[in-house]
Structure formats: structure tokens, C-alpha cells
């Protein structure tokens, strides 16, 4: 899927116009185990690429989620506050975290493609 990219920190990104949707990968949710809490940023916040934007907590560990691209947070997933297990059930779909209006849509193309991410996780 040319419209789907990844980061080395196990986030996935899809893009629609200049808005990027961000979540954590299937590999990440599997490593974390049962997710019990997701902390999301405030809508309207301006983030730099690589900046911490969310925290995901499982029974094993708490991990940071980083903004894959720079821009402004336009939306967060309202489902996750009451049902963080959605991330386990559907990490790549209903378990999305947030949307960012990209400051530089060109940043998206510099992220990892599917093959590069698969190589990173050893699942090529």
C-alpha cells in the first residue's frame, strides 16, 4: 500500500491530503501485550517530528509514541480512553491514535515503506 508508512519506533502513518493518521503497529501491540491505558495529546497542539505525543501503557510496560511528522494535532481517537483494548484488537484500523495536519507533506515520503519496516522487525 503506497499510502502507508512506518517509523523505526513502530508507529504506522497513512495520509489523506495533508492529514496524517497515526497509530502503533501490529508488531508493537503484540510486544506490549494487553494495553490498559492510552494517553493522547490535546487537539490543537503543534508537534515536531520525533516529539513524544502519546503514551501507551500495557500490563508489561509504558511506552512513548512519537509524532512521525511535524504539524498540528487535529483529532484524537475518542474510543481509546474507555476501550484501550481496541489497540490490541485492531492496531492498524480502529485502534488509531491521532491525526496530524502536516506542516510539510513531503516528510511522509521519507518514512519507512512496508518492506523496510518488515526488515526492521525481522518479519520480511
Amino acid at each position, binding site marked *: 500500500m503506497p499510502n502507508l508508512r512506518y517509523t523505526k519506533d513502530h508507529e504506522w502513518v497513512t495520509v489523506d491530503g495533508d492529514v496524517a493518521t497515526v497509530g502503533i503497529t501490529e508488531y508493537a501491540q503484540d510486544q506490549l501485550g*494487553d494495553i*490498559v*491505558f492510552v494517553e493522547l495529546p490535546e487537539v490543537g497542539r503543534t508537534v515536531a517530528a520525533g516529539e513524544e505525543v502519546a503514551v501507551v*501503557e500495557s*500490563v*508489561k*510496560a509504558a511506552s512513548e509514541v512519537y509524532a512521525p511528522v511535524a504539524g498540528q494535532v487535529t483529532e484524537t481517537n475518542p474510543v481509546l480512553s474507555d476501550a*484501550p*483494548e481496541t489497540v490490541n484488537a485492531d492496531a492498524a484500523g480502529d485502534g488509531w491514535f491521532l491525526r496530524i495536519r502536516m506542516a510539510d507533506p513531503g516528510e511522509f515520503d521519507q518514512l519507512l515503506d512496508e518492506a523496510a519496516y518488515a526488515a526492521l522487525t525481522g518479519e520480511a
Partner: protein
Amino acid sequence: MSDTQSGAPDRAEPLLFELGSPGRSGIDLPAPAGCATRLGSAERSTGIGLPDLDEATVVRHYTRLSRLNHGIDTAFYPLGSCTMKHNPRLHEKLARLPGFADVHPLQPISTVQGALTVIDELARWLRTLTGLPAVAMWPAAGAHGELCGLMAIRAAHEAKGEARHRILVPDSAHGTNPATAAFCGFEVEKVQEGTDGRVDTASLEAALGPDVAAIMLTNPNTCGVFESDIQAMAEATHAAGAYFYCDGANFNALVGKVKPGDLGVDAMHINLHKTFSTPHGGGGPGAGPTVLSAALAPFAPLPWVLPEDGGQLRLLEQATGPAGASFGRLRAFHGQMGTFVRALAYCLSYGREGIRQVAEDAVLNANYLRSALADTLSPAYPGPCMHECLFDDSFLDGTGVTTLDFAKALIEHGFHPPTVYFPLVVSGALLVEPTETESRTTLDSFIEAALDLAARAHGSEAGNFADAPGNAPRRRADETRAARSPVLRWKPPAAERG
């Protein structure tokens, strides 16, 4: 009710709220007469919902709970990174001497000279064992000691007119390190780890810069290995104008053998409750005295214990005179007297040579476990370890058994599980710290249990692990549900709410 009073230790123990019965009491006191309050309409007109209980019910409740507990006084407790060693009873006896146990921080200074002497003598031991010139005795525990060290570091930078806002922390540091740095207002930056479980010196050097206030390293680190490049890292840190905070939680592996001052450390807390024998793990009082280098000593927190003419000791409680640069008080009063007494008793009963053997035996015991388990479990890193040995979960590959299952099954054999899923840099980590106070017999029985479980994980019984522990007072807790829908307080049953 009669069932719960039978004393059978395997029954679920009701809450005190469920044991209460209206009208019961432990002590009958007449209602106070002629006592007017000035609370007016703010005065409470109803009860606050505490249960009515008699003394025997309360004593039995807590005694039964204590019988459900697993402690270092009941069995082996190899909880990695926590140093659950035996606490000699002699030290308990000394800590309970009335002169120490009943001392009050507001007593006239002339009446607490003995207590101050204990603090001062212990301070001398800690300075000698660490090779550093100053020690702040007051931090309440390890993380509080980290705060003390970072506040001294911040004060030292401020005194030089420097605003440095970054602190470098590797993944193998204790989890409290980044939390302390963030709490202190610093930005935390991770440092990469090499493949041998040690901090990559080149990555550390590359991350250093004019805005770095300090590095925070744990040595031996949470992978159980010694940071062998620590002196080079200290030199690079100092060359960049930053300070070196060492987390001393694992001092049990080094005490009497290595002086952190010789390694270039500027500040390090010492968990007296771990290395120097105070019962801990139940939240009971700890102490985290923090040693400081000459560069940081002037900023040490108040009060300072100083000698007076005539041999008396006094407390300097203001940031004046020699303490003029102190960053101020860190807490009310003077720390945990009982822990100080136990720690000094520990030093005196072992002596210098004995303390050296503490570290040697702690490392020997960990390596005995490691080598006996290395062929069956999967050590995370090659080579000998320090005071704790780290395994990953690759030995469970293909069995369907997880690290958590394996840890829970150890309970069935009468052992407290090791630390699991920490450090995070290792998949499904099992961190085992036997400490020096365990006999070879205990270690052998643990080894036998671990080998047996590993064999069963690969056999037809692998499915049974999901139900472990089968014979404990409490079976497997649903950790996910507990975290997702926590029940934080008891509420009366709806029918009785009236």
C-alpha cells in the same frame, strides 16, 4: 462469619469493612461531657463509615493476612534489582533500643548526642566505602536520593551561571532515573546500549554537549553487568562540563570492592534498606543517603551535622556559614533513625573485610545460578554477571508459555518470582538476584525448580502454566482487568446503604 474466623490460611480473607458489626468496639470510652466545638454548621453529624470492630477481630485479621504473605523471612525472594537479603536480628534488636526507637526530632540537641553520633559515624562509613568527601544523610529512599543528587547538580550549574537542561539516561538505568530527571525539570534523552548489555561509550560521547547537565548511569546496570568503560564515560562527561550521577541501588555488588569516587562519580545514592539490612519491600521506611563529590558537596541539603568545640555535635539548620550554598531542606527532620542504626550495626558487625565479602558472595551466588541455568534458560548476555543474572524468554520459544507463566509457576515451588519484563531492553526478561545471604542448598533447590519448569514447558504439561500458581492463597490475578477497571475502594453493598 464463623468460617472466616476458623484461621484456615487458604481462605479468602474478608476486608475489615466486611468483618465489622454495628455496636462492637475495642475500647469503651465515655462520651466527652461539656465539650463544645466551634465548628458550627461544619460539624459532622453522621459517621464516616468506619466499621465497628473488636480488638481480637482486628488482630486476627492482620495475623491471617501476614500468613498469606511471602517474605524474605519465609522463603527465597530473588527479586532482581531489589536486593532482598536476610536482615540480621541483632540489627533489629539495636534499632529497637528505646534511646533510638523513641528519640524525637524536637528533643534538645544535648539529649540526642548519641543519635547524632550514630548518624555521623554511619556518614563516615559511607564516605569511606564510596571514596567521596560528603554525604547527605536525609533522603528517604533511593528515588529521593536521586532527587537530592540532581538538585545538587542543578545548584552547581546555577552557581556557575549555566543553564543546562538535558540529562542522558541509558535504557539499562533504573526506571526511577528518567522520572527523577523529569521531575527535576530536565529533558531526558536516551542513550543507546551496545549488544553486550553495556552503554555504548561512543553514543554517550556523541550525545554530550554544552546543554547536558548530567548523565545518570546504574552500575552494575539492570542487565546485571558492570559498566567496564565507566571511567572513560566519566571523563567524557566531565570534559563536557556535566556531572556524573550513579544510581547506587546495586551497590551490593560493589561494596567494599570498588569506591565509586575512584570511577569519577559525582553523586550516588545508597539504598541503606537494600545493601545495609533494613527490611523492605512492604513500603516500610527506607533511606537513601547520597554521597557527593567535592564539586557538589557545598550544595548538600540541610541540616548539616557539625562538630562543636568540646566534642559535642550540632545541627546547622540554616543556609549560612559553611552551608551557605546549600540548596535547602529536602524533608522535615532528620531521616529514618531505625535504618541508620541498622546500617551502622551492619557495618560494625561485618567490618571492612566482611563487607568486602558481602559483594564477593553476592556476585558468586548470582554466577552460581547463572552457570547452572545457562544451558537450559537463555542468558541475555554472554559472560559472567555481577550480583544478578538476566535471562530472556527465547528458551520458551514455541512452548506457548510466557515469562509471566514461568514466574507464576515458581510460586508453586515456594519461591518468590524473579523480576519479570524488566529491563525493557530484553525480551520477556527474568532478572534473578539471589543476594549473598542464601545458602548453596537454597540456590540448588531454586535451580532444580527452574530446570524442572523449563522441562515441563517443553513437554505435554505446557498448558498447565496458564493456571499457575495452583497452590497459592491467591490464584492468578487478572492484571489486565485490574488495570482497565480498577476497584479503588470498598463500597457498602447497595442493599445496606439505606
